[in-house]
Structures are given as structure tokens and as C-alpha cells.
């Protein structure tokens, strides 16, 4: 084993995915015994950089030095051999096995497995690291926080001296976060180094010594915690030149068409994902919901699409209470919906024409029978109007992302909805399709619809919105006019370091 040489240096690391430059000449170093934060927006390249370090990706260029020696890391096995362990958000534990079995799984020893010895070894090792786990507990009986502890312990058990934690707090409740931080501090005192990926400023300030900020795939700088402030970090994280652009032609905005009041929604695990969320969208405006992913955007989209039922709160469209409306009732009431994942919006194996008719099937049906001619004519009309490159009889899964999105737009917008809910409308689209989709959304605003834009792409929010609402941990923590938004304020709001007291007004 290498004698306690565990500092890491990554030099000029570059990684491309097709046309996307995920890491651009990134330099990063880790001192022994420090907790080092990697901070940045979604898509800033944090996870990519760490996946390279852990051998899950191969860098296109650049080098990695571990403990003073140039390292060639081609797989996680190599990384583990060099004392590097990674804990991702998606745990790799077998729920039906015990903690001991999970930790011992994949360890050398061939077919022979001595449960007693393994249990003893695990218990001893956990005691040595001061990690509280019950070796005999079945993983499926453990809470998320405990499972994470098992994951961390698993890495330590494999002699990791450097721990990479990818957004470890995203899955935890606040009390569990405190326990995690305690664990990390204890490990630090044992001489371990930790890389802590996050976009929450308060957590970064609470537990780290140094912070490296990534922005758009580049290192925006490394600072010492003692020499920085949350404001500076926010600026470094979000800084860009698109701020304060006044939209041409300040329009007179009308009445609120979409009113969301005190929305409480539970996620799949039963945790509150939206905690009394409120906002209005007026006729003729685009309200952008900005935020780091996983702060309730998915649940908000689903609640407004009618596919997730709120536990409390109100949803009104043009004065009508539609809180518990079904998707078809919402569509009929004039809500055009663009889903977060376009593959969840269309049935891939059905044809373009069938998908275009599905949402308003009653219009294409007589006495329970489909009117195939009207379905085809509707499709031909929308294909021409929205420039969809497809025939009515094409299976929609064969369409490119852009054309599929155009089909979804066509279906949602063809009936001139008074409210448009667009979630991640340009995710994964090329430049041409992106421009097209954004143009269509602005067209809706200009004809007087209330447009809600939920996007994790801050540039998109800044380019389209009249007002920007920031979502953080299931609540709107501030609403500002697009012209007032600046990097520092948005960064602070998005990373939970600030809340506007008068945030809910406009």
C-alpha cells in the first residue's frame, strides 16, 4: 500500500461529450485532511470531473496525480486501489442483504465466506472509524441517511483515503445532514480528505475548508472559506453577461390567470417536495421558475399537469379552482402542458396522428368510435403549422428530439390555451429547435397567455422571463423582475443562503 500519500491533483482536465465541453482545462487539487467543496450550477461539470477521478469516465486530455505519482485511472477498481472512494446519490446497496453482507460483497476471498468473521471485521472497522452502524441490520430497514452511512463506510472499508461525495445532502432531511457533517469532521480528524459536491452555500460554508467553483465546465476559482463570503461564491457560481437585459416593449400585463397558493405536494417517498408554494402568473407574461434541480421542480410540473395530486393548497386557472383536476380536465380548461420529459408526454409506439389526438380525444370521437379522417386531418394541419418533420402515420418514437418536442408543442398550443406550463422545454434540443420552441413560447405570451417556464437552464430563464421566481427546497424564496436579477442575488437565492422577506409579492 502507498504510505499515506493521498493528496490529489488534477491538471488541465478536459472532457467532451460530442459537441458539449463538459470540462474545459480544469485544475483541481486536494490537500491531505481537508474537506474541499466543488460548487456549481447544474451542468457546471462537477460530477463529470469527479467521475473522471473515480475512473467512470476517461478524460480527453489532462493528467491526474495521486500522492505525488502520476496515476492512470481507467476504472473504479483502479481508483479504489489508489484509495479513492465515491458515494453517489444513487446507492449501490442490496436492500435484502445485511450491512455486513453489503460491505463484504465483492471483497476478495473467493467463494469462501465466513459470516461470523466478516461480521466481526465490519464491526471492528466501524468502531475504528467511529461510524455507527448495525452490522446485522437489513439494508431495506435502514433510513436514507443510514444507507448513506453504509455507503461511506463501504468506501472506508476498502481503504479509501479520499472520499468523493456527490451531492450527499440532496437525499437527506436536515437532521441527517447534521449527522453526516459530524461524520465527515470525524473522518477529517483521522486524516481523510473529502470532496464534497454541492450547490448549497450554507452547507459548503459549514463544513468545508476550501471551495472550488465550476461554471460552464471551467474552474471559476478556488477560495479559502475563511477568505470568502456567500455573496462572493454566489457571484462566482452564477456570474454571466446576460443579466439586466431589458426585454423590448414592456407590455401591459393583465390579470393573474394562473394562481398557485400554498401548494403542498409529496414526492414518491412521501416526503413533502413542495411546502406551501405560492405564485401568480399574469396574462401576457412569462414567469420563470429558476432553481437547482431537485428542489421541487418535477413535482410542481406534475402537480400543474394533473398527474400528481396536491395534499393541500389551491390551483386556480382564470378564477376556476382546478386543484384536483385530472389531466384531461386541465387541458379542457385551457392549460397547455409541456412535460419535463418529452418521452413522458407522448406514447412512443403510437403514431404522430394518434398522439396529437390523444389529449382531446372527445373531439375526434363519435359514439365511441374514432374518426380516423379527422385525426389525420388534424395531424396534417399541425405538422404543417409547426414544421414537424414526420408523416401522420410515423411512430412518434422515430422522431428526433426537436420534432417530438414540436409535436408536443403543437398538441399543447393548438387550442390556444390561456395558461401554458412549459417544463424544461428545450432540454437536449439543438440550437435551431431551441430557438423555435422559445419563439413559440414568446408567441403565446404575446397573444395574452400566462406562461410558466420551469427550467434548470438559467440562461433560458433569463432570456425569456418577465419575472423570475426562485424555488428552493419546495418553496418560492424570492420573486424578482428580470431586470433586477443579478448574479449575486440569484446565486444566493438558488443556493438557499437568502430568502426575500417580501418574496411572494412582485
Amino acid at each position: 500500500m502507498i504510505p499515506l500519500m493521498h493528496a490529489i491533483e488534477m491538471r488541465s482536465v478536459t472532457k467532451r461529450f460530442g459537441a458539449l465541453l463538459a470540462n474545459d482545462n480544469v485544475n483541481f487539487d486536494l490537500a491531505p485532511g481537508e474537506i474541499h467543496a466543488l460548487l456549481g450550477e447544474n451542468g457546471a461539470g462537477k460530477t463529470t470531473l469527479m467521475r473522471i477521478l473515480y475512473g467512470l469516465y476517461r478524460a480527453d486530455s489532462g493528467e491526474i496525480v495521486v500522492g505525488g505519482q502520476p496515476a492512470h485511472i481507467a476504472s473504479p477498481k483502479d481508483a479504489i486501489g489508489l484509495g479513492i472512494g465515491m458515494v453517489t446519490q444513487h446507492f449501490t446497496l442490496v436492500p435484502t442483504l445485511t450491512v455486513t453482507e453489503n460491505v463484504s460483497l465483492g471483497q476478495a476471498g473467493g467463494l469462501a465466506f465466513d459470516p461470523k468473521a466478516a461480521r466481526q471485521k465490519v464491526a471492528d472497522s466501524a468502531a475504528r472509524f467511529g461510524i455507527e452502524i448495525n452490522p446485522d441490520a437489513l439494508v431495506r430497514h435502514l433510513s436514507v441517511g443510514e444507507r448513506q452511512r453504509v455507503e461511506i463506510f463501504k468506501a472506508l472499508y476498502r481503504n479509501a483515503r479520499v472520499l468523493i461525495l456527490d451531492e450527499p445532502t440532496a437525499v437527506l432531511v436536515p437532521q441527517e445532514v447534521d449527522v453526516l457533517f459530524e461524520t465527515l469532521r470525524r473522518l477529517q480528524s483521522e486524516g481523510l480528505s473529502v470532496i464534497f459536491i454541492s450547490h448549497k452555500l450554507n452547507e459548503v460554508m459549514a463544513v468545508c475548508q476550501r471551495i472550488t467553483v465550476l461554471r460552464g465546465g471551467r474552474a471559476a476559482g478556488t477560495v479559502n472559506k475563511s477568505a470568502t463570503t456567500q455573496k462572493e461564491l454566489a457571484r462566482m457560481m452564477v456570474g454571466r453577461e446576460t443579466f439586466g437585459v431589458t426585454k423590448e416593449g414592456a407590455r401591459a400585463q393583465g390579470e393573474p390567470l394562473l394562481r398557485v397558493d400554498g401548494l403542498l405536494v409529496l414526492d414518491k417517498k412521501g416526503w413533502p417536495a413542495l411546502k406551501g408554494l405560492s405564485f401568480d402568473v399574469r396574462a401576457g407574461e412569462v414567469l420563470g421558475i429558476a432553481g437547482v434541480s431537485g428542489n421541487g421542480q418535477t413535482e410542481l410540473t406534475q402537480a400543474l399537469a394533473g398527474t400528481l395530486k396536491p395534499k393541500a393548497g389551491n390551483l386556480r386557472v382564470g378564477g376556476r379552482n382546478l386543484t384536483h383536476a385530472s389531466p384531461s380536465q386541465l387541458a379542457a380548461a385551457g392549460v397547455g402542458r409541456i412535460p419535463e420529459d418529452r418521452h413522458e408526454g407522448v406514447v412512443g409506439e403510437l403514431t404522430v396522428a394518434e398522439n396529437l389526438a390523444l389529449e382531446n380525444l372527445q373531439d375526434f370521437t363519435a359514439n365511441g368510435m374514432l374518426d380516423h379522417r379527422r385525426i389525420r386531418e388534424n395531424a396534417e394541419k399541425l405538422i404543417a403549422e409547426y414544421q414537424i418533420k414526420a408523416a401522420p402515420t410515423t411512430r412518434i418514437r422515430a422522431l428526433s428530439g426537436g420534432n417530438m418536442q414540436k409535436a408536443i408543442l403543437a398538441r399543447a398550443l393548438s387550442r390556444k390555451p390561456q395558461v401554458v406550463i412549459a417544463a424544461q422545454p428545450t432540454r437536449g434540443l439543438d440550437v435551431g429547435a431551441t430557438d423555435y420552441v422559445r419563439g413559440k413560447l414568446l408567441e403565446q405570451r404575446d397573444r395574452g397567455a400566462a406562461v410558466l417556464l420551469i427550467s434548470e437552464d438559467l440562461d433560458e430563464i433569463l432570456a425569456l422571463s418577465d419575472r423570475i421566481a426562485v424555488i428552493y427546497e419546495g418553496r418560492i424564496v424570492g420573486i424578482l423582475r428580470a431586470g433586477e436579477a443579478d448574479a449575486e442575488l440569484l446565486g444566493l437565492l438558488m443556493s438557499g443562503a437568502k430568502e426575500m422577506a417580501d418574496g411572494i409579492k412582485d
Partner: protein
Amino acid sequence: MGLKIERVPAPVWVRPLIPIIAVVVTFILTAVLVVWAGANPLEAYYHFLIAPLSSRMSVLEILVKATPLLLTGAAVTFAFSSGYWNIGAEGQLYAGAVAAAWLGTLLGGLPSFAAIPLMIVGGFAAGMLWALTPALLRVKLSVDEVVTTLLLNTVVLFVISFLLNGPWRDPVSGWPQSPQIAESTVFFKLIPRSRVHVGLIVAAITLIVVWFIMSRAALGLRMRAAGLGQNAARFAGVNVERTMLAAALISGGIAGIAGVGEVAGIHFHLIEGISPGYGYTGIIIATLSGLDPLGVALAALFIGLIDTGAQTVSRALGVPAYLGDVVQAALLLTTLGMFVLQNYRVTLVRGEKRA
């Protein structure tokens, strides 16, 4: 050297060939067993596939065998296309058979043209009723229908065992069989000197109705949407639960008609072994058909042929008739394998190892 597996769908023209390729592969695989049983595979397959088509009697017997299979195949296809995995066609068939045995003794006073439709309606209702509980559990509580429908198949057998050994035991012979159904409720013969009965027409009409609903009715589009993309269907406003419930109940009803046909057309009373697994074979047929009603017709006739052929083979060559079951099961597995494999391209890579 290694295998490279890419996700590349096979060209469209390959799809109709899949069942044919599956049949060929199945025969190659089962040839081993045929040889083991002491027969010549080519001769065996001649008796399996060709011989039954060469005599009037066995051709008509294929139609008799295909009659319940057309219905169970249609029933399973209907449910599966909505994403409801009804494994309970066997039980629903028996429920229909119970209804037929009961109505058959009750409706004796009516003329045939009234009694026979009532028998069919009664069998449909009984199949629906038997399908109701698992369907409700599925849509209300997300209880896995594969398990519940399958388990209810066994339950219905015990219900029948109770009826036949208790209240319905034949008072004349004392055998565990229900009293003979009335003459006017018997499905009349379509072809003299054969067992082909009017149930074949009923099955054909049912299949046409199933085709019509699946391709022409709004319910059919909703069912296909729910079956092919549940979340997307729900997003687009399809009431997935209600659609599934409708599909499950209609499916159960169709399977129930198959039971009516076996009681009123073949046995004329209820006995325990009225179905040698027609409901399960319906799953094979639905799968072979690719959930297409026309394919159901072809697959049902084909399985009817193999079933009849199995008898011929065993008589002619002295191999066990169970070989027919083995061929059927192997055919299902190869077809499923083909459906999966058609989405991939497997190539042999030489030299340089994969990146």
C-alpha cells in the same frame, strides 16, 4: 474476440417473419427430444404439421380445438394491449363454464334462438365477475394482477370441485359431473358428423369485435396508449385506471364465452377437466400474435394444429403426446426471445478488445 451488442431495431420487414423463424428454431430445439423419444424428427414433424391437414376428420378437429383458443387468445390480447397482465383466462373460462352448466339446466323451456344467446351473455357476465376482484385490486390498490389472476385460477377449480361433489353431483350416475344441459341450450353443429359447433362462429365474431374495438374505437386507442406508455397516456388525459378496468373485465368476459362453448358445444355438462389449459395457451397465442387479432386467428389455428398433430404423432410413432406441450412451451420461449432480440444487433468482434 467477443460479442458486441448494440441496440439497433431490426428492419420492419423482419417483424412478420418472426413467428416463422421462431417455429423453425423451435423445431430444431425440440428435435433433440424427438430423437430421444426414439423417433425420426422429420417424420415426427410430418405428423405434427402435415398429416393433420390431410384428412377431413382431423382438419375439423383442428377447428374444434381452435374454437376455445380463439376466444382465450382474444381475451388475453385484449387485456395485454392495455398493459393489464391477465393470466387468469383459465379461471375466467371455468367461471363461464359454471354459468353455462347452470343456465343450461335453467333455460330448458326457451327455444334455442333465445337460450343460446342468453348462455353466451351469462358466460360473459360470469367471466367478467371472476375478473372483477383482481382488476379492482389492481386499479385501486396497485396489487399485482399477475399474481391475483393466476391464483384465482386455482380457486375456481376448488369451487367447481365443491359444486360437482356437492350440490351438482349427477343424481343418476353419481359421477362428479353436473346434470346434462337442456337440448335447446346445446350449441348446434355447424358441420354434420363432426364436433365443430356454432361456438366457432361466436369465436370468429368475437375476434372481429375485438379487432374493431382495438383499432376503431376510442377505448381501443386509450387501451393501446395505456399499454404502450402508461405515464404518457396519463399525462395526455387518458384515465388509465378506468381503461384498464374496462379491458380487464371485457377480457374476462371473452374468456368466459370460451367456457360456455366447451360446456354447450362439446361436453354438455360441467366436469373438472373441461379445459386442458386453454386459458394458459391463450397467453401463448396472444404473445405469438404480437397482440394483433389477425395474428390471434393464425396462432390459434396453428396451436390447434400442433395439438391435433401431437395426437397423430403419438399414435403413429409411439412418442408421448406431451411432446405437443413441449413444442408449445418452447415456441413461446423462442418467440419471446425473438421479440427481445429484434431490438438488438449482435456482432462477433475479432481482435482488438472493446473500449
